[in-house]
């Protein structure tokens, strides 16, 4: 069972070994609407949890994507740069944004599991 965690800023992270894969949640993708642009971080960049790490733009507006975990960027998903609509089609799968080599795995404990995130979204509609 893969361990997926969710942030209050509507990002998800899937951790496999010491690598976390980050994307935006299905709820966030639905709220943004049709995504027409995505920008991913440079390889090797050190990022800090809560920091602006990637960018996503819908027809309507630009939004920052905040990393829920700290570490070094090991990969960016160039497929979403070429075809940003992947983020709407499969936000928690093919529409992932970047991978991070975790520098502080302890941060994961402050994130929510699926049930808690679903409850959080219901109680905090945007």
């Amino acid at each position, binding site marked *: 069972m893969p361990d997926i965690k969710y942030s209050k800023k509507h990002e998800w992270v899937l951790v496999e070994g010491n690598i976390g894969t980050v994307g935006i949640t299905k709820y966030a993708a639905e709220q943004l*609407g*049709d995504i*027409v*642009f995505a*920008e991913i971080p440079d390889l090797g960049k050190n990022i800090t949890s809560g920091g602006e790490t990637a*960018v996503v*733009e*819908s*027809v*309507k*507006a*630009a939004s920052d994507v905040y990393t829920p975990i700290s570490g070094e960027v090991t990969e960016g998903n160039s497929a979403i*740069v070429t075809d*940003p609509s992947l983020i709407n089609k499969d936000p928690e799968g093919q529409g992932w944004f970047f991978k991070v080599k975790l520098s502080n795995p302890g941060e994961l404990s402050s994130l929510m599991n699926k049930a808690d995130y679903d409850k959080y979204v219901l109680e905090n509609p945007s």
Partner: protein
Amino acid sequence: MNQEILHTSLFNFHQACGAKLVPFAGYAMPVQYPLGIAAEHNFVRSKAGIFDVSHMGQFSIKGDETVCKQLEQIVPLDLASLRLNQSKYSFLINDKGGINDDLIVTKVKDGINIVLNAACKHNDVLQIKSVFKKPAKFMLHDELSLIAIQGPMAVSILESFIPGISNLKFMNGGSFVFKGQPAYVTRSGYTGEDGFEVSIANASAKDLCETLLNNSNITMIGLGARDSLRLEAGLCLYGHDLNSDITPIEADLLFGIAKQRRETCDFIGGSIVKNHLLNGIKKKRVGIQPEGKIIAREHTKVFHEGKEVGEITSGGFGPSVGFAVAMGYVNIECSEVGTSLQLEVRGKQYPAKVCLLPFYKKSYAK
């Protein structure tokens, strides 16, 4: 600034349609419906859409034959030569030659009808009244709704319920009847599509929308798609692409000034406009197309060869053209079509080019 938010006559109807309502020019207006902005945009381009634009000011001036001349002091048209029911795009000019509002004027029996931008309408009315020396009857028609029906199928769908409208030529209007109720309909719009704007009593607005929506080729459209449609069509949004410090010449909207009045410039602020016409301008509104996928929104800084030369005033993604589109003001020496520009987005510069407007073009019913 704790002003009460205003509702159009369709507020409850928008909610029932599942609209996402946002504050706009003091009104709660639908930014999108469940279909979403891009799908709504494409629906208008391929079929037809209904827009509630009742927040806009529907203003009428009734009076004697001097109404046209008096209004011409601040509207640079040749109003006297307009045919009955003919519409023209123009502006309210201020004493600096700047644009206080952009508007559509229609000549009607006994006077002039004007459609004003929602955010400007109350100031516009004050400005118009201030230049009238002879008495006239002014009315801002809050009792009327304004419903735009736009898209290639608008004419056939609307004709079924308001017979006769298909005979209208673009930028012409007339009095019609919807289910026994009077409606003033003009063939006009702000989407780059053929379409109509129906001025009808508030009490009939919902019935008109519901009746049209029985046809599956028409749907409700929010302000989000209205913005992307007008931007693709190269049309200006007041308060963004136009403001009171920008002249019609800088805005590249010379067509809003009647031909013979370009010679005389006999209107308020005319000396400044004439100077711009004769001696040129320092900056100009142009179309700007980013070369990659980067989206340059309003306030994006524009550079040419390392020097800041302007600013984006409207920008986004054009769903019909499939690429990023923008317009903005650049120094005149950088305004030639094809000029290379750089757009600064999130601290990085991206290549772009000056391009012709509109990005998307369709033929109107002439």
